[in-house]
């Protein structure tokens, strides 16, 4: 018991907290986060007109800046070095632009456009109902699970990691999947193939109205059907 208390005290003594909230237009809110190292978690909040940013970081040289421009777009930027972990809630329809050098990006239950980029770490996107998703990791896995909207565009890329896409059984999409060295598992859907080589597959499911693009140079690609 005493060990737990000591640990908790030590943690609270070294950890710093950052908290800000911004009022935003409910239907057109935008958030940009630029982080050096750490996790960025963004999820839909109950409040449809607020972006609430909470962050924890250890005492280090990292500085967090948060501002809102005249159009209502919120930008959070970490400069310097150090790990900062963000937990952010936004209106569900918010458009996101997230960048982290190292760590992880997790986005859940949103309906706006999502652009997520990380150099070294995983990107996990789940419960989305968005018409535009771009997720790109250089050295990490990328996974997406969500709706595929007609005329939507979904691009998942990783240079050396694994790419996973979990789509509804009735998803209507055109697929382009390319893996130079890691192989592909696309067996979950009965596709109509236009091109099929070991490294590049192009085909469609349904009328092919949405666009799904999966790319990895060294990793593997897995297409799953949502149960």
């Amino acid at each position, binding site marked *: 018991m005493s060990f737990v208390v000591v640990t908790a005290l030590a943690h609270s003594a070294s950890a710093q907290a950052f908290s800000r909230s911004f009022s935003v237009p409910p239907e057109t809110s935008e958030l940009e986060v630029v982080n050096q190292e750490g996790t960025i978690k963004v999820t839909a909040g109950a409040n449809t007109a607020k972006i609430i940013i909470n962050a924890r970081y250890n005492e280090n040289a990292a500085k967090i800046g948060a501002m809102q421009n005249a159009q209502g777009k919120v930008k959070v930027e970490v400069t310097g070095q150090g790990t900062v972990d963000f937990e952010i809630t936004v209106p569900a329809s918010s458009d996101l632009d997230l960048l982290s050098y190292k760590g992880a990006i997790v986005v859940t239950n949103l309906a706006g456009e999502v652009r997520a980029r990380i150099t070294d770490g995983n990107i996990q996107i789940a419960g989305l109902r968005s018409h535009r998703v771009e997720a790109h990791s250089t050295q990490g896995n990328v996974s997406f699970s969500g709706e595929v909207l007609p005329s939507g565009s979904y691009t998942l890329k990783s240079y050396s990691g694994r790419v996973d896409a979990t789509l509804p059984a009735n998803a209507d999409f055109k697929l382009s999947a*390319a893996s130079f060295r890691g192989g592909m598992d696309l067996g979950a859907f009965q596709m109509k193939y236009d091109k099929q080589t070991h*490294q590049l597959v192009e085909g469609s499911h349904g009328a092919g109205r949405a666009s799904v693009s999966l790319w990895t140079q*060294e990793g593997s690609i897995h297409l799953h059907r949502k149960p």
Partner: protein
Amino acid sequence: MECRAVINSLSDFLDSQNIWISDDEVKQIETHLTNCPACQNLKLELSEIKTAARELPLHTPPRAMWTRITNVIEAEISAENAPLHQTKNVSGWWGRLKSRKFTFSLPQLAAGGALTSALIIAGISGIFVPHSGTLDFVGLQNALLLPDEGEIKAQLERRMDAVNARKANWDSQRRAEFEQRMIKIDESLNRCRYMLKDNPKDAVHQEMVRALYSEKRQLLEDVERLRW
């Protein structure tokens, strides 16, 4: 530590492995570099040369070439060691080579590097081209395999120059990670370009080459957005 000592060790210092200099020496060099703009500039220039050298494609020479090189080395070792040793002693000549102290001025180093590059290029061209007729590795480096590849390369070089100008200020770990990623992507790019050269109309490899250029561009964009 004096400038002369730093200059002599700079090349080893820039080697990310730092296996030829001690931790203590690394610290002394780092301290000197923070206080000496001239050596800092020199370090930046050497870093750029190293980066440019890494842009060159990697090639695996044929086994016959290795055999010829091995034969030449062994013959030289035998001649040198004949009066003293009856058997070959690889660690002996390597040890002696390592123990010798070489001192070169920077112009000498640059001239030596240029000469070595020229010899390698000439050697590769001379060895590969007459035998294969189609494998021109130097040509591969300069060849434009996509209709817009010249413009893609030029854009990347401009961005790379801007990043290189700032790289000296980065944390050493970040710099090493960035360079290693670039090298890995370049290796993939070289593999794909090599295959594309064999079959220029292959849409798959065209896409792969484009995707890899895009990956390089993305890394450079990240650095700009992260304000490194």
